[in-house]
C-alpha cells in the first residue's frame, strides 16, 4: 500500500432521502489514491446508499462528489463506469445464464472499439482486439483461480465462487476505483481469507484504489488503511482502524447504548 495524500475521490456533504426516510445526512469523507478505504456501520446505516451515490445509481439531494479534482454533476452508473469507477454487488448481480468467461468479458465492454459487423466476421483489427481483451480476461481468471470454471454457467457455481466472478468482472474494467459492497458477506472463514487476499493483491499489484463496505469489523480492521463509520446515515467516526476501534460512539453504535 503505497498510498499518497492526494485524494482521488472526495465526498462532500452528501444527503440522501427516500420520501421521509433520511438515508444519509451530510456525510463527507475523502479517499486517497491507492488506499483501501472501508465504510462500516450496523445494518441500515446507509453504507450501500453511500456506495450507490458514488457509483451514480442514486442521486443525492445535496452535496457533491469530486473525482480526480472534478465536480461530477448529472451522473449515472454508465458515466461513472466510463470514468473508471467499478463496483461489485452485495446481492450478486451476475449474468447467470452466461459463462464465467463471458461474464468477465462484459467488463471489457467500454474498451471495445471495433465495429460490431467486423466483430461478427472476425476480420482485421476486430480479431486482434478480441484476442487482446481475451488475454486480459484470462489473466484475471488465473489471478482469481477459477480456470476450471471458465466455461461454466455462472448461475450453477457456489456462492463464494460467484463472488469471485463478480470481482473479476469489475477488475476487467481496469478501474481507477473499485467499490466493493460487502465482498465477504455470507462467506465462511476460509472464503473470507481468500477474498481478503484478493483484495490486498489487487490493491498491491495493480495499485487500484479500493472502497470497501463491510459490517464484519474484524475483517475491515485488518486490511483497510482508514475507516469511515456510519450510523443512521450520519458519520460518527473517520480514522485509522485502531483509533476507530477505540471511539466510544462506534462502540455504542455496534453494541448499543444504555438509555
Amino acid at each position, binding site marked *: 500500500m503505497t498510498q499518497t495524500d492526494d485524494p482521488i475521490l472526495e465526498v462532500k456533504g452528501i444527503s440522501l432521502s427516500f420520501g421521509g426516510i433520511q438515508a444519509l445526512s451530510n456525510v463527507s469523507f475523502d479517499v486517497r489514491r491507492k488506499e483501501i478505504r472501508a465504510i462500516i456501520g450496523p445494518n441500515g446505516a446507509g453504507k450501500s446508499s453511500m456506495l450507490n451515490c458514488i*457509483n451514480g*445509481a442514486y442521486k443525492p439531494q445535496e452535496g457533491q462528489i469530486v473525482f480526480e479534482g472534478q465536480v461530477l454533476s448529472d451522473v*449515472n*452508473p*454508465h458515466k*461513472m*463506469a*466510463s470514468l473508471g469507477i*467499478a*463496483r461489485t*454487488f452485495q446481492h450478486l*448481480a*451476475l*449474468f*447467470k*445464464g*452466461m459463462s464465467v468467461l*463471458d*461474464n468477465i*468479458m*462484459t*467488463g*471489457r*465492454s*467500454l474498451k*471495445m472499439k*471495433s465495429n*460490431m459487423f467486423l*466483430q*461478427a466476421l*472476425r476480420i482485421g483489427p476486430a480479431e486482434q482486439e*478480441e484476442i487482446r481483451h481475451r488475454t486480459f480476461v484470462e489473466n484475471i481468471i488465473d489471478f482469481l483461480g477459477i480456470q476450471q470454471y471458465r466455461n461454466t454457467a455462472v448461475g450453477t457455481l457456489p456462492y463464494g465462487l460467484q463472488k469471485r466472478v463478480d470481482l473479476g*468482472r*469489475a477488475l476487467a*474494467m481496469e478501474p481507477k476505483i473499485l467499490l466493493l459492497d460487502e465482498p465477504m458477506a455470507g462467506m465462511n472463514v476460509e472464503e473470507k481469507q481468500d477474498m481478503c487476499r484478493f483484495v490486498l493483491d489487487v490493491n498491491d499489484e495493480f495499485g487500484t484504489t479500493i472502497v470497501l463496505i463491510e459490517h464484519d469489523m474484524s475483517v475491515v480492521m485488518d486490511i483497510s488503511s482508514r475507516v469511515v463509520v456510519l450510523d443512521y446515515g450520519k458519520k460518527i467516526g473517520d480514522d485509522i482502524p485502531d483509533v476507530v476501534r477505540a471511539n466510544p460512539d462506534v462502540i455504542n453504535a455496534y453494541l448499543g447504548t444504555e438509555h
Partner: protein
Amino acid sequence: MGFFIETVFGGLMAGVLYSLVALGFVLIFKASGVFNFAQGAMVLFAALSMARFSEWLPLWLGFENKILGNLLAFAISAAIMLAFAWLVERYVLRHLVNQEGVTLLMATLGITYFLDGFGQTLFGSSVYRIDVGMPKDPVFIFENVFPGGLLVSKEDFYSALVAAALVAVLTLFFQKTGTGRALRAVADDHQAAQSIGIPLNRMWVIVWFVAGITALVAGVIWGSKIGVQFSLTLVALKALPVIIIGGLTSVPGAIIGGLIIGVGEKLSEVYLGPALGGGIEIWFSYVLALFVLLVRPQGLFGEKIIDRV
C-alpha cells in the same frame, strides 16, 4: 404416408414464419422486460413500407430494374425501422424505466394503434403486392420414394430458407460479437450491466432495431405470399401461443414453439378436422398454449420463476 409427410412439411414452413414473429417478441422481452404488443403492427408497418417503396422508387427515379427496386426498398424500410427503434427508446421507454410490466404493456398497446394508423396514413390502406420474385409454382419431390411424390410449395421452401438464414445470423451476432454479449448481459441484469458501463439506452435501440428487422423479413415473406393488408397484424396473435409454448425468454424456444404450432395446426386440421367439423386450425394453437400453461407455465424452454415468499 406421403400425405402425412406433406402435411408436416407444410406445417413446418408455416411454423417458421410464426417463429420469426415470436422471435421479435422474445428479443425485446429479454433485453428490456417489455412485452411488446406492437410486434404485429411492426410487421404490417415494415411490409407496407417495403411494398410501397418498391413501387414508388422506380417511378420516382425512373428505372425499371425490379431487383434494384426491391433492394433499395428493403434498405429504406430497414432504415425506417431503425428510426422507429430510436423514437420508441427516446420518447417512450426512456421515460418508463423501472415501471410495472403492465404499464409498459399499455405503452406498447399505444404504439400498436399509432403504428397501425400512421402506417396506413403514410402508405395507404389497400392491399398491396410485394414481388420479390418468389417462385409460386409447387414442385413434386421424392417421386421414386413415395407413389406420386410429395407436393412442396417452392415459395414456402425459400421462405423457410430465408428465415433460417436470419436466425443463423442473429445467433452469430448474439454469441460472437461484443455487442451481442452486452445484449445478453442486459437481458440478464439491467443494474449490473449499467454499472460495468454498458449503455442501456443504446442497447434498447439496437434490440428494437433487430426486432424491427425480423418484423421486416416476416412482413416481406407473408406479404409476398398473401399480400400486404391489415390482416398481417393478426399473425402477431398467432405468435402469442408460440411464445407461451416456447417460453417468453428463450430464443430457441420461439423457433421450436413456432414449428410445433405450425405442424400442430396442419395435422389437427387434416386428421381431427373431419371428426370435429373443421376450422380447427384457427383455435388449435390457443388450446395447445392453454394446456402448456397448465402443465408448464414457464414454457418448454423458459426460465423457471422461483420467488422468495
